């Protein structure tokens, strides 16, 4: 007998007769609190900041100069761009060389890139989380992982949901999903929180919408 059959047989023997099942109670809340779209965005900003992401707000016109400034402040010379990042976002950033997200790039090559700019699939206000799903404005998972500086643009209020249940219902499980709540962090040494071990040590979130 294969191990598969053996394990399945053991399960069946272990659970025995299966009578009627009580329903799984789903009476927990879909969302914690009633908020206007503006309040949800404020909550997202507050929660992101609490876990030490840097939060900025701007509108369409303000975005290119803001991105230029954020990249320049870090002395960024190379910036990774996903295939469908709106071209005008970085149009004003004359300085940094654009590195395109390509399958052929090796991890070591990506390790030499200073920054990455992406969009996102959605953001969750109650937990201060942004979710990437590998969409064309986000690129492969590794480009937001290896560089030390990640700028993520969230369209508000369209891309903001309030809660985890609302987020899951909008996501496609078949796509690779990365949930990010603040920059990489560890509390492994005497429970002192230290930002940045392996993922980007600086996470900047730009909330893009009418101001």
């Amino acid at each position: 007998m294969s191990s598969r059959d053996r394990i399945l047989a053991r399960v069946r023997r272990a659970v025995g007769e299966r009578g009627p099942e009580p329903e799984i109670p789903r009476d927990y809340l879909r969302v914690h609190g009633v908020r206007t779209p503006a309040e949800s965005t404020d909550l997202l900003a507050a929660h992101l900041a609490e876990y030490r992401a840097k939060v900025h707000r701007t509108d369409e016109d303000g975005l290119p100069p803001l991105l230029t400034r954020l990249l320049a402040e870090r002395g960024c010379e190379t910036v990774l761009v996903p295939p469908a990042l709106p071209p005008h976002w970085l149009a004003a950033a004359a300085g940094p060389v654009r590195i395109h997200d390509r399958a052929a790039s090796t991890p070591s090559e990506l390790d030499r890139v200073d920054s990455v700019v992406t969009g996102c699939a959605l953001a969750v206000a109650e937990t201060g989380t942004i979710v990437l799903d590998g969409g064309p404005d986000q690129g492969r998972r590794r480009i937001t992982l290896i560089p030390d500086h990640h700028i993520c643009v969230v369209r508000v209020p369209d891309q903001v949901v309030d809660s985890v249940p609302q987020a899951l219902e909008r996501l496609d499980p078949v796509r690779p999903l990365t949930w990010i709540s603040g920059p990489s962090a560890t509390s492994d040494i005497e429970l002192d929180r230290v930002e940045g071990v392996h993922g980007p040590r600086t996470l900047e979130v730009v909330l893009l919408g009418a101001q």
Partner: protein
Amino acid sequence: MSGTYLGMPAFPEAAREAVRDGVLRANLRHATHTIRGKRALAVAELADWDRLRAAGRAVKDHTLRHLDRYLLQLEAAVTAAGGTVHWAADAEEANRIVTELVLATGERELVKVKSMATQEIGLNEALQAAGITAYETDLAELIVQLGHDRPSHILVPAIHRNRGEIRDIFRTEMGRWGRPAPEPLGDDPRELAEAARLHLREKFLRAEVAVSGANFMVAETGTMVVLESEGNGRMCLTLPETLISVVGVEKVVPTFRDLEIFLQTLPRSSTAERMNPYTTMWTGTTDGDGPSAFHLVLLDNGRTDTLADPVGRQALRCIRCSACLNVCPVYERAGGHAYGSVYPGPIGAILSPQLRGTADAIDASLPYASTLCGACYEVCPVAIDIPEVLLHLRERVAQGGPVTRDGIRVRIRPAHGHTAERAAMRAARLLLGHPGALRAGERLLARARRLRPRRLPGPGRAWTDSRELPAVPAESFRDWWAREREACR
């Protein structure tokens, strides 16, 4: 190795030992109390906590009752998404499957995401025997690995080490595994984390194979879920060409929607955060993004035996948040190593004896490693009634009764019929309540230790086929506990 497993030096030098114990106790106390306070705040933020807890419990119970169906559904979904599913009845089989998969890639080293399932089966040691080096990449696991040590906490495995000790370990050991620690190296956590970053980045960037566990597997979609903080998980899960995940069969949940419960309760219960910094979800393979080969090894290793016990099976609901460790007064004083298992604390006290059987003196004594204060049940996000299971297991150990071992229904005799062990059990029961019995207990335990067989007879045999029977600790949990309490006076 089995000596360090239990964390107790074989021949303790009394004075040095006392100092070490003092440090350990201070580290633990600070850590558990810090997490405890923060967790209560994080939980209080959700007005529906009790309902989330009840729903989490119900989802897990429902899944366990239909585990065969959900495992088959999971297998079909993972396969359809481009992954390969393997089934492992025990530790030996799981280790063999993983070793063969790694050897087939032609690689001789791999990176690992922190995973208790792979610790449980002794994967690193099995790989080592086949000439494969597994690098732990979680900061705490790295500290443990470099320190030739064993984890002592589910969530913060190096909780028993303070910053000075960690600096010393990095200084002396990092160079032997790869990039040496920068000189000079201070003991500031920031500096230490930076040293780990540099040391490990070298390994991530060239790794071709990774091994992970998973927090959840979704039957409906074949989606695997890993929660973490540092990004080492993301590194391992996305950069290598081949990804092998070893996951206990109890980690399956029916639907993608079910994650809405656990993604709310797990981070708040474990690190007291609204959400952990990184969660990775993947379904099979994705063209051009992430590993091109994905293998899922479904691990039984005593889980179906645990499922066969109607009272004890609730331990399989555990989502490994570690909240029960942080509130446990016994864990706080004894530390994780005293439990002689990768699963320490209250959950370890009910899980290990069920996964491994109670033939070994350590496992048989674990149900006694509790004051039954009930704090563990109060905090558990899936409402495992740990005291109830402890009492149930005590009865099994003391009076014998029906259990399932390797899928076969057997009757265990009281304390495995072993006179010395049985006496030790009696002593154990007395010790927590009657410190006066300490001396007698110590003598009995010393005898039990001498009688330790190298392999277990009867139903425990399969377990010892794949590993050395761990030594009865130089000092058992209850001696340690009692002595500590004595020392506190």
